[in-house]
C-alpha cells in the first residue's frame, strides 16, 4: 500500500463520520434485511433475495459517503494541501479512490456477513433455499467487491463534482436515472447499481463474470474521467 493511500486511510480513520458510517450502516443493512425477510408475502425463494434491498441501501450510502467526503475536500480546499505534498495529482486522486474502495470493501464485508448470519435462521423457518458453504463464501466475497466498486465510483463522482451536497445529489440522482433508463430502454440489468445486485446473486440475466466485468468497466471509466478532469482542474 502506498504512503498516499495510507495517508488517505488515516484521514478517514481520524474522522468521526467514518466510524459512524462503519457502525451504523451494517445495522441499517440488517434492519432492512429483516424487514424483507419477515415480510409475510413470501415471494423470496432464496436467501439472497432477502438481501436485495439492504444491499442497494448499503451500495448507495457507501457511494454517497465517498462522494460527500471527496467533494468536501475540494470545497474545504484541503485537497490543496494534498497537492502541496504531492504535486503530481493523479497519484493523489488515485489514492483517494483506493482508500474509499478499501472502506467500501470493509462495509461490504461487514454488511454481507451480518446479513447472512441474520438471514439464515429466518430462512430456516421458511421454504427458502439456503446457500451451500461455497456459495455463501462466494456471495460474501462478491458483495464485498461490489460495494468496494460502488465506493470507488462514489469517490470518482466526488472528484468530478467538487461539492459534497451536489456530489451526494449526483449519486442519488443517478439511482433515479438508472431506474428510468432501465424501464425505458430495458437496460437496467447492465447499469451499475443493479449490477451490484446481480453480482450478489452470483449472476442473473447477466452472467456473474460479465456483471463483474461491467462493474469494473464502469469504475475504471469513472475513475479515468475523474483523474483526467482532476489533473487539469485549477484550484483557484
Amino acid at each position, binding site marked *: 500500500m502506498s*504512503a498516499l493511500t495510507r495517508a488517505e486511510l488515516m*484521514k478517514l480513520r481520524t474522522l468521526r463520520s467514518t466510524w459512524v458510517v462503519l457502525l451504523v450502516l451494517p445495522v441499517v443493512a440488517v434492519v432492512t434485511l429483516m424487514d424483507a425477510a419477515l415480510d409475510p408475502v413470501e415471494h423470496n425463494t432464496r436467501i439472497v433475495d432477502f438481501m436485495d434491498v439492504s444491499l442497494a441501501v448499503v451500495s448507495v450510502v457507501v457511494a454517497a459517503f465517498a462522494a460527500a467526503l471527496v467533494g468536501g475536500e475540494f470545497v474545504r480546499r*484541503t485537497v490543496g494541501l494534498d497537492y502541496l*505534498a504531492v*504535486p503530481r495529482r493523479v497519484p493523489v486522486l488515485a489514492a483517494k479512490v483506493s482508500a474509499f474502495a478499501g472502506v467500501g470493501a470493509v462495509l461490504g464485508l461487514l454488511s454481507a456477513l451480518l446479513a447472512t448470519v441474520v438471514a439464515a435462521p429466518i430462512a430456516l423457518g421458511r421454504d427458502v433455499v439456503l446457500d451451500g458453504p461455497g456459495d455463501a463464501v462466494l456471495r460474501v466475497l462478491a458483495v464485498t467487491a461490489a460495494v468496494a466498486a460502488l465506493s470507488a465510483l462514489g469517490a470518482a463522482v466526488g472528484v468530478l463534482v467538487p461539492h459534497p451536497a451536489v456530489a451526494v445529489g449526483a449519486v442519488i440522482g443517478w439511482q433515479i436515472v438508472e431506474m428510468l433508463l432501465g424501464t425505458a430502454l430495458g437496460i437496467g440489468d447492465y447499469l451499475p447499481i443493479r449490477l451490484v445486485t446481480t453480482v450478489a446473486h452470483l449472476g442473473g440475466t447477466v452472467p456473474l463474470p460479465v456483471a463483474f466485468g461491467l462493474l469494473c468497466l464502469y469504475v475504471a471509466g469513472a475513475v479515468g474521467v475523474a483523474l483526467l478532469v482532476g489533473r487539469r482542474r*485549477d*484550484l*483557484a
Partner: protein
Amino acid sequence: MSSAYAIEVDTLTKTFGRLKAVDGLSFTAEYGRVVGFIGPNGAGKTTTMRALVGHIRPDTGRAHVAGRPYRELTDPLGTVGAVLEAGAMHPGRSGRNHLRILARQGGIPARRVEEVIDGVGLGRAADRRVGGYSLGMRQRLALAAALLGDPAILMLDEPANGLDPEGIRWLREFLRGLAAEGRSVLVSSHGLAELALMVDEAVVVAHGRLVVQQPLAELRRLAGGRTVRISVPEPDRLAALLAERGHRVLGRAGDTVTVGGDDARAVGRVAFDHDIGVDRLLVEEPSLEEAYFRLTAGKESIR
C-alpha cells in the same frame, strides 16, 4: 538551492473567463529576505501564489520556485512551505492529526509534527478538533503545516489574519527569524503597518501587473522620500520664508509646515533667523501605507 532566486515569476498571465487576474507579472524573491507582496483586492496576489505552487496553470509565463516549476520539485514540502488558506482543514479532525496526515503524505518523520506544534506555540490545543479553533489558532496550525518539511522558501497569504496583537508580534519575529536563517519568505498582507515591520522589500501589484519591486527604504524614497515637519505660531510666514530660500514646501496643515527632504537643521535655522518660535520639529519618512497609496494612486482601493 538550484537557483539564485527562491521565487521567480516571469511575465505570468492568468485569465479566468473574461477576468485577467494576472497580467504579465514579473518579480523575484531572494533567499534570506522577507518580501512583502502588496496590492489591492483582486490585484492577483493569491492567483500568483497559487500559480507558484502549481494549483493553477498559467496561460503564459513562468512561476518557478527554487529554479523550477513546483510540479517538478523532488521534495516539495522540504522546498516550499505555503499557507494559501488558513481555513483549509477539516473541522472534525484534530490539529495534530491534520499535521500527521500531511507528514505522511510528504514522507516526513512523525517527530517533526511535535517540533512544529511547539514551534508555532499550538501546545495542547493540537489535540482539540480544528472546528473549535479560533482564526488565530488556525493560522498557527497552517503555519505549522507550512514548516513541516523545514523548507527554505515560505509563501504566506495573509498570515496575520485573525492574530491578536501578541500573535502579530510573534509572527513578525518568527518570520524575521526564518529569514535570518537564510530562508526566503514571501508574505502578502493587508496590514501594511505590520508588514512594514517585517519585510525587507516589497513587491507592489495592481490589476495583475507589477507596480514596483524595491527594498523598503527605496520604496519610501520613490513615494516622496523624507519630509521635515515644523510646527510654528506663524506657519504662513515661515512657509513663504522657506520657499524664498529654495526649500520645497509641500504643504501646510494647521500650524505645521511640511518641507521636502530631511534637512531639519536648515529648516529650523530659517525659523530661528526670523525669530519664529518652534513648537515641534521632526523628520518623517513615509509609512509603507503612504508609499503604497502614492504608488497605487487611482489603481484600486485597499480593503
